[in-house]
């Protein structure tokens, strides 16, 4: 098969289908944005619930001036930075303990396991704090089979990509959160507010809602309720994990299926291409296509239409090959007319001036007859080959005899013969083999200069006998080299005195095929001439079932 040089790297069917498979990525992208939307809604819900909690706590503290008045008096003169409560809250002075404890009681009663509630007065003094931001480590939820077998193995990889919420964050209540919170400021102005912020170490998001505590028409403090968004985030990241794993598996299965499909398609197409390329071999024979001719799809159609086209070529070739035979047959009658007329003329002595023309006519007729003989020789050989008896014979003896004979046929030429000792036995017809040698010799003589030797070698190579006839002389043009063995193809450039029809090497090919072998011609490596090589399987050697030409030549 000829290798093709390409300008661009090959972008095959498989690669294309794989690229198309990336369309599947739209699914996880859609899923991801949907998840984000759900998360947003959940956060809004959480915010609302936090606001509701803060309102409830504030309601419990409304119009209880004693608690907060007490606080208001005692907090003057305290240094906010002297001590830190657990949770980073401001210190509560012993004087205010009673009031604080009461607030604490109320607040704790309303406290939530996952939330932190604190109360500040107008001066931003922390009056009470309860609860914590950290949740108890969530109990492992029941894993489905999918989680166990698909998501779990992927988890180490997923955790690197997706940030899971952690309970390991800094839950200190920074000064900034109390003093600088917009929500607190807004609540002290009498308007409930909420806001999102991050923990100081940035590891968790916190939603906080502040609600004013009223005393009459006056704001005396604010209740702030805080919660982390970890619950939502862990839900969301669980879902993301599943999404990624489902997508990966789907992509893997889809991609593999597509790849298999594409491989099968491209495999069939490649086979069809290879067969189509090999359908017409270098000797012009045509083989039938096998791939996909029975398939009921487009490739089957393609293969069938290839087959039809090849069949037409085969018919045309058969027509060409029978042309010589039919021509020789059809020409014989008019030539007989001319010949018998000339013979008649000659028998009644013609005038001298007419004799010249008679001789010329005879010369022309002789050439025509030679042509006719050559043409019918090929035709006869085609018939002979079809019904010749096979026998075992020693190709070495026949070749040696023939080469010795050429010394008398071509006295001006030197033939050199080389062959290994021993018998080289072929299964075929020695007459045909000798006829093939004659054609090869005539061919070599025609093309070589008179003083150059013609080398004939016969050797064993594997299970084959290899006959080579090499002569120096003009080399073959590459465009004709592959077609030399077709009927009526000739590489001769000059029209010599002898008529040539390009049938000699066609006969060589017929005989080679009769012996289940092949013939080919190539230039000598040093470019000094041409070698015709005939490879024939030795008698007894295993012969692969030779594929016969697609159509039998018509008689």
């Amino acid at each position, binding site marked *: 098969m000829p290798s093709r040089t390409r300008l661009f790297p090959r972008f095959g069917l498989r690669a294309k289908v794989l690229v198309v498979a990336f369309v599947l990525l739209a699914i996880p992208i859609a899923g991801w944005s949907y998840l984000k939307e759900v998360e947003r809604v959940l956060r809004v819900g959480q915010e609302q619930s936090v606001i509701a909690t803060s309102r409830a706590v504030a309601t419990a503290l409304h119009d209880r001036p004693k608690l907060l008045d007490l606080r208001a008096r005692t907090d003057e003169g305290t240094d906010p930075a002297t001590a830190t409560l657990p949770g980073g809250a401001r210190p509560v002075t012993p004087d205010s303990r009673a009031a604080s404890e009461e607030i604490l009681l109320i607040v704790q009663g309303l406290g939530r396991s996952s939330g932190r509630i604190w109360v500040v007065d107008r001066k931003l003094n922390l009056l009470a704090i309860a609860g914590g931001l950290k949740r108890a480590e969530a109990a492992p939820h029941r894993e489905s089979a999918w989680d166990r077998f698909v998501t779990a193995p992927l988890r180490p990889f997923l955790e690197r990509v997706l940030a899971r919420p952690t309970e390991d964050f800094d839950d200190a209540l920074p000064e900034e959160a109390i003093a600088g919170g917009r929500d607190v400021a807004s609540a002290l102005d009498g308007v409930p507010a909420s806001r999102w912020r991050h923990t100081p170490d940035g590891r968790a998001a916190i939603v906080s809602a502040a609600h004013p505590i009223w005393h009459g028409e006056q704001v005396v403090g604010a209740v702030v309720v805080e919660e982390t968004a970890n619950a939502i985030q862990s839900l969301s990241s669980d879902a993301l994990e599943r999404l990624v794993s489902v997508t990966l598996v789907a992509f893997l299965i889809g991609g593999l299926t597509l790849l298999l499909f594409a491989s099968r398609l491209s495999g069939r197409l490649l086979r069809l291409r290879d067969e189509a390329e090999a359908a017409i071999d270098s000797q012009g024979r045509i083989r039938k296509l096998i791939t996909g001719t029975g398939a009921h799809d487009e490739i089957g159609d393609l293969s069938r239409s290839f087959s039809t086209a090849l069949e037409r070529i085969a018919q045309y070739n058969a027509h060409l090959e029978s042309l010589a035979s039919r021509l020789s*047959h*059809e020409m*014989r*009658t008019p*030539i*007989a*007319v001319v*010949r*018998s*007329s000339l*013979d*008649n003329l000659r*028998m*009644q002595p013609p005038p001298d001036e007419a004799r010249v023309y008679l001789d010329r006519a005879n010369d022309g007729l002789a050439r025509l*007859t030679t042509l*006719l*003989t*050559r043409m*019918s*020789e090929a*035709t*006869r*050989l085609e*018939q*002979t080959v079809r019904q010749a008896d096979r026998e075992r014979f020693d190709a070495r*003896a*026949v070749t040696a*005899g*023939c*080469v*010795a*004979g*050429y010394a*008398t046929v071509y006295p001006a030429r030197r033939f050199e013969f080389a062959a290994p000792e021993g018998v080289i036995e072929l299964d075929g017809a*020695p*007459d045909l*083999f*000798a*006829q093939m*040698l*004659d054609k090869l010799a005539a061919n070599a003589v025609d093309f070589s200069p008179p003083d150059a030797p013609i080398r004939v070698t016969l050797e064993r190579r594997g299970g084959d006998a290899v006959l080579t006839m090499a002569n120096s002389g003009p080399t073959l043009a590459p465009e004709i080299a592959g077609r030399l063995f077709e009927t009526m193809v000739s590489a001769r450039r000059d029209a010599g005195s002898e008529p040539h029809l390009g049938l000699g090497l066609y006969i060589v090919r017929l005989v080679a095929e009769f012996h289940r072998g092949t013939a080919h011609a190539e230039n000598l490596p040093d470019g000094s001439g041409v070698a015709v090589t005939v490879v024939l399987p030795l008698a007894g050697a295993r012969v692969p079932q030779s594929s016969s030409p697609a159509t039998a030549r018509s008689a």
Partner: protein
Amino acid sequence: MPKRIAIVEDDPAIRANYADVLKRHGYEVSAHANRREAMAAFATKLPDLAILDIGLADEIDGGFALCRELRAMSATLPIIFLTARDSDFDTVSGLRLGADDYLTKDMSLPHLLARISALFRRADLAREAPQTEDLLERGPLALDMKRFAVTWSGQPVDLTLTEFWIVHSLARHPGHVKSRDQLMSDAHIVVDDSTITSHVKRIRRKFAAADPAFDAIDTLYGMGYRWKTA
């Protein structure tokens, strides 16, 4: 009394040319274009020799049928096929039907005349007693040069004229190699090499029918054939 030759040939030009040359050489000629016409003429009077084409106008094998009918009328009448068809199959069919020779149309007229006179000689002498002076003997082979008859160990071998001339050319100088070209000129034919090969093949087969151990003709590949010295 001149010999009568019948020509059955559908091409008018060839028919006329052959008739002319035969008449000029003293033969009486009756020319026919098709099988019906020829059979009508043969029914009244048989010719002394018949030259038949195989394809006759609308009948592609008309000549073969004609040969069969003629042979049925006379076992000795010399019959020559002169045709454009040169395949081995046609040659074998024609000779099997009892024709004495099978020639292709590129045969020249002098060659044709030589054959016709040889066939007449063979037909005439067949009735007379054999004479020994014209006998060529090579071991079991005996060639009667006048009658064109061949025997092998006394057994007659039925050869066509062409085959006889080839055997004669080979046996005249046993041990000498005859190239195909030499055989062609000795047999007065112009054919391609493979036709000579099939002639020799047929000759061997005919001798082998008389003697299965026959192997007097050697093939020397690249050179030709040789009659073995006994």
